């Protein structure tokens, strides 16, 4: 049992090993100890008497700690081992590994224990693209440690390996000649400390003080205790909720400038960094449960808001960043991520989050503090993003080598297509971006009136928003089909595919009321709704593929925003039905929703087929159940208090969420399904329970 991947992490430091705890990376392989987007260990292999080990079991104790129970030998048949080996690994900055060997025999045993270590200092981007290194690696022995290093000009990274028990270090690792007494044990703690240095040896990226294992455990418990408590009659929801809280704790990332504050990174392990879109959407989803994430997200993204025109980074004044990276290729300007700005939605969504955050928390101070950033974000929409000068938000990358082609959330190459499968040219104006722009202006108007003492600005914004809404409902509406186009192309023609993007429009409020029912009907049609959730693309479109990344799969986060939109326009039952499908799916993944799953019709597979993806947990999938809770309970802040207007799918029964934090202090929300459980299944699924009106997925 050596296949499979074990990943543990703390912030942006993470270890990916096999199930023995060993790391053996090849240049394009993803195993290793990574920190700040650099691989600090590419080999870490334990042997006892020159033998590799076999795994008996693995305890995933916490997201930052794993314990491997091993025995010597790699045979496939059962070995009556007289020795047990335990590796207890905790990630905190670098990592600690407590290595314990137990002798079960009646006599002492002499052993040679060895750990081979190597570091290739690959940039994460190099691991993906296999680029040869330009600098030199070195090793240094002395001071009771082995130091592995890499230097390219002023760029220097080092891995320091030491042990609490005396070890014989050499350039390839360390050895221990030990005798373990009869029925006795031997233990050492191996310590890996990482450093990013300038040429004079001073630290470049000094991480906050590393916390002890106990501090990390206490922190996790406090995180869970501070969140509202959920109870209900449908046990899987309780599991999913708890899983989301723990996974969100693991996904927290503390930028060095945030003074200990944390924001949600995009996904574990490859996207453990600040992202504009992902951090904002996850913060929005989490607001009712974990409002602190939004504050750090707003501050940190605001602090990095664009100020100049830079083609390489696709930066404009007022633009909110897309992605920050810290590795060698970014440091030498071979990649644009310092940060990279190529996203069209993060800027309006930044304003949306600021307003939504204030509605929940009443934190007027932050609204005043970020007034210049919010105004600059609004100005970006009109001054820099209206590439064709016709009042829409467009995107087209200026960095044609390493920039992103599609700067909306569906960022794969074929995600934006006409019904007949053709791909439009650039620039492109996808529909949801216009909704975000509308919402941003409406929300900024409220903030301007209430906090910035600028009613003229507020009036102007509302007027612009109203004009945009009118224009949008005319230009994007496909009247013969009764839904909005996915986008406008560079000639102003409609990109006419039926897609999930139109669900976001309801959330943003840009849809004229008379058109809402038709939009909802399309989204809940068999072409779009699989039974588990709403597909990214309709089954009738040429590019539809149930396992295509953005052209047919079901994304939980997408569905959570659509359900929120349904609630906004009064489609309670449809919102509950989407929630039921996604929460049913979550149950099949033990409460941890994948980034996406296949768009197959529900009766066809009977279980949701996960889209193969490298990241789990994924931030906005982790946030989806939190937002679905909000939509089911109908939670909405209004004039300083919290409205509760539940529409809970049949089968959940009694549902309560206690101690919801906000400007009201803490309040409780209670709800009950329209009808109780009528059928008992071994695995009760929400969507299989009919209510009196016959509402059920299948």
């Amino acid at each position, binding site marked *: 049992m050596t296949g499979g991947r074990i990943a543990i992490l703390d912030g942006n430091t993470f270890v990916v090993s096999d199930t023995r705890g060993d790391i053996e990376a090849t240049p394009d392989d993803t195993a290793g100890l990574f920190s700040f987007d650099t691989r600090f260990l590419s080999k870490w292999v334990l042997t006892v008497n020159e033998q590799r080990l076999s795994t008996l079991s693995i305890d995933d104790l916490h997201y930052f700690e794993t314990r491997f129970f091993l025995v010597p030998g790699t045979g496939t048949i059962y070995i009556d081992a007289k020795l047990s080996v335990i590796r207890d690994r905790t990630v905190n900055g670098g990592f600690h590994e407590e290595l314990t060997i137990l002798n079960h025999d009646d006599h002492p045993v002499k052993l040679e224990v060895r750990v081979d270590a190597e570091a290739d200092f690959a940039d994460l981007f190099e691991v993906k693209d296999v680029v040869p290194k330009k600098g030199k690696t070195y090793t240094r022995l002395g001071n009771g440690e082995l130091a592995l290093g890499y230097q390219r000009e002023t760029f220097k990274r080092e891995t320091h390996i030491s042990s609490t028990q005396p070890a014989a270090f050499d350039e390839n690792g360390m050895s221990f000649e030990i005798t373990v007494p009869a029925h006795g044990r031997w233990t050492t703690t191996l310590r890996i400390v990482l450093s990013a240095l300038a040429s004079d040896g001073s630290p470049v990226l000094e991480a906050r003080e590393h916390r002890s294992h106990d501090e990390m455990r206490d922190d996790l418990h406090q995180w869970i205790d501070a969140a509202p408590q959920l109870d209900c009659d449908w046990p899987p929801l309780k599991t999913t909720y708890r899983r989301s809280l723990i996974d969100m704790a693991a996904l927290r990332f503390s930028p060095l400038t945030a003074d200990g504050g944390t924001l949600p990174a995009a996904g574990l392990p490859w996207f453990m960094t600040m992202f504009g879109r992902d951090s904002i959407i996850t913060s929005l989803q989490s607001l009712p449960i974990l409002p602190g994430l939004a504050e750090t997200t707003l501050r940190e993204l605001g602090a990095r808001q664009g*100020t100049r*025109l830079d083609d390489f980074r696709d930066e404009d*004044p007022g633009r909110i960043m897309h992605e920050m990276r810290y590795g060698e290729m970014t440091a030498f300007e071979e990649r644009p991520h*310092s940060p990279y700005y190529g996203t069209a939605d993060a800027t309006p969504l930044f304003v949306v989050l600021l307003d939504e955050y204030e509605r929940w928390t009443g934190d007027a101070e932050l609204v005043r503090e970020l007034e*210049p950033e919010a105004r600059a974000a609004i100005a970006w929409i009109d*001054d820099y993003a209206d590439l064709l000068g016709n009042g829409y938000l467009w995107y087209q990358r*200026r960095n044609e080598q390493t920039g992103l082609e599609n700067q909306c959330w569906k960022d794969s190459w074929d995600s934006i297509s006409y019904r007949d499968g053709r791909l439009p040219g650039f620039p492109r104006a996808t529909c949801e971006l216009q909704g975000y722009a509308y919402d941003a202006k409406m929300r900024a108007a409220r903030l301007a009136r209430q906090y910035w003492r600028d009613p003229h600005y507020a009036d102007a914004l509302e007027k612009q928003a109203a004009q945009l809404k009118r224009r949008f409902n005319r230009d994007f509406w496909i009247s013969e089909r009764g839904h909005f186009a996915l986008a406008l192309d560079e000639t102003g023609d409609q990109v006419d595919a039926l897609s999930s993007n139109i669900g976001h429009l309801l959330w943003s409020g840009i849809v004229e009321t008379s058109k809402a029912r038709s939009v909802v009907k399309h989204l809940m049609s068999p072409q779009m709704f699989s039974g588990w959730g709403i597909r990214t693309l309709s089954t009738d479109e040429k590019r539809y593929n149930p396992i295509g990344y953005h052209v047919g799969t079901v994304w939980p986060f997408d569905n959570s925003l659509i359900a929120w939109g349904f609630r906004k326009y009064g489609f309670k039952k449809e919102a509950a039905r989407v929630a039921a499908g996604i929460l049913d799916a979550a149950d099949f993944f033990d409460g941890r929703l994948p980034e996406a799953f296949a768009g197959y019709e529900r009766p066809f597979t009977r279980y949701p087929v996960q889209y193969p993806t490298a990241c789990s947990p994924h931030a906005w999938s982790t946030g989806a159940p939190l937002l679905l809770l909000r939509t089911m309970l109908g939670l909405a802040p209004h004039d300083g208090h919290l409205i509760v207007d539940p529409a809970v799918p049949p089968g959940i029964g009694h549902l309560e969420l206690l101690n919801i934090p906000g400007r009201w202090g803490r309040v409780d929300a209670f709800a009950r399904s329209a009808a109780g459980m009528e059928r008992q299944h071994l695995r009760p699924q929400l969507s299989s329970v009919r209510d009196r009106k016959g509402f059920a997925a299948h």
Partner: protein
Amino acid sequence: MGQVTEAFLTGLSERGDEPPLRKITGTYRIDLRDNGKVDHWYLTFDGGKVSVKNSSKNGAKSRADCHMITDSELFDRMAGGRANAMAAVLRGAILVRGDLDKVVAFQRLFPGPPSHTARGRKQ
């Protein structure tokens, strides 16, 4: 010391009401190295007001909230929009003593590259 650097730093006190500049408070010291000589700059930011002092005398070292040390050649390129400051920090080409968030705030004041292909109303 390059002319670009001097124009950029002395120009900070005339930029007035720019929000990214108004956001910065505190003191900065910038040491620019050039063939064994060090040129010292002291900047104080206070709600949009900026005072800039230059001294090549080595004795005049005062403490600052944020102290950056780099080569004057590199600073010249940053001040001309031809090098990126955050990338330079990551590769150890700018040594930072003190608050990193002050560096993040300061680097927003550098101009973009001399040419670009952006479209839109403001270009």
